[in-house]
């Protein structure tokens, strides 16, 4: 399997094509390696960033994979990875969740800008490249919103949510008490949320 940022080799694509063909011929077990390979990029770069809730994201991932197995006969191999097809199923499922739960689509809409890129039929990027591009696009959106909040808020988010340092360590670095850091992070996330996705008219 290729690693992130490295394009899939012709051999890997050939293997994937063979597995898809086998599944389309009725051997659904042949889908297992494909699902195992793409579960993480679907979860980490497509579903979770649009839902923000790990439990719902896992359910959506399972439904996405199940739908892919059920509808594998409808998939047409076009000389590139099956990943964009899986990704589109996942995005549709995410919107279903937002619709059914009558949740705000703020998070999903905030990430909507990448969809057109990967849905372009002329795009022949392989799965890892697509996932990397998508992650970079998400990061860009995060950075945009981070750029609009106070420095101290940005630092609090960086330390706690990106570097994932313990609260005590974050407070020490900022020279404040844990209680004050808690307030700072609370306000920082509120401030971030106000700016996140606002370009989409939310």
């Amino acid at each position: 399997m290729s690693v992130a940022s490295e394009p899939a080799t012709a051999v890997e694509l050939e293997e994937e094509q063979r597995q898809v063909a086998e599944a389309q011929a009725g051997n659904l077990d042949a889908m297992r390696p494909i699902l195992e390979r793409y579960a993480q990029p679907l979860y980490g770069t497509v579903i979770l960033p649009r839902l923000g809730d790990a439990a719902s994201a896992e359910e959506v991932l399972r439904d996405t994979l199940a739908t892919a197995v059920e509808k594998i006969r409808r998939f047409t191999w076009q000389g590139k990875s099956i990943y964009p097809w899986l990704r589109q199923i996942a995005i549709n499922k995410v919107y279903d969740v937002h619709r059914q739960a009558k949740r705000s689509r703020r998070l999903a809409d905030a990430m909507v800008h990448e969809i057109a890129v990967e849905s372009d039929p002329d795009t022949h990027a392989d799965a890892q490249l697509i996932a990397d591009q998508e992650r970079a696009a998400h990061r860009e959106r995060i950075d945009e919103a981070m750029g609009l909040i106070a420095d101290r808020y940005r630092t609090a988010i960086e330390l706690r949510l990106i570097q994932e340092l313990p609260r005590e360590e974050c407070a020490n670095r900022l020279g404040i008490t844990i209680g004050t850091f808690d307030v700072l992070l609370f306000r920082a996330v509120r401030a971030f949320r106000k700016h996140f996705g606002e370009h989409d008219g939310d």
Partner: protein
Amino acid sequence: MATDDDDILTGPVPAPEAEASPSERMRAKAFAELVDKTLAGRTPPPALSADDRALLEVATVIRAASGNVELPAAKRSALVEDALRQAIGGTAPATSGVVPISRARRRWVPWAISGASTAVAVAAVLVLWLRTPSSPTPLPPQARSLDALIGPIDREHAADAASRIDTIFADRLDSYRESLGRAP
């Protein structure tokens, strides 16, 4: 100072240096603990307020976009197995205790047993239905009908069932013996 009435999601966010009210401190601490749990990979409680849920989702999005959220390998495999089983026709099971799909595919066995049992039952019903009904067992030629033997039962003799049964038994025994060529 931030007031208790501030709307968490839509209200203005105080400046970083602004003094926090006791209620804001309390909410901030509760949120910090939620973040702790999420970072530790634990599921947040289902009964979260809409505000806390919205803020926690934003925190998760930031982490996910930074590549900090991995799906553990065991969970990934379980989800894949669940998805395969779900697609093949079962319901979506819980992610624990996942049965490999190769075993799940043996689900045709109970269906086969059930089908065979149904076929046997249908055949049995058909045989019973199509079979020529046999005539009721005739009385021995010598036996008398119960009307002739007992006749209508008066209300005052209703309790004499034992004597009536004896009468019928004696009559049937006589008939049987006659049919064998023996004298009663």
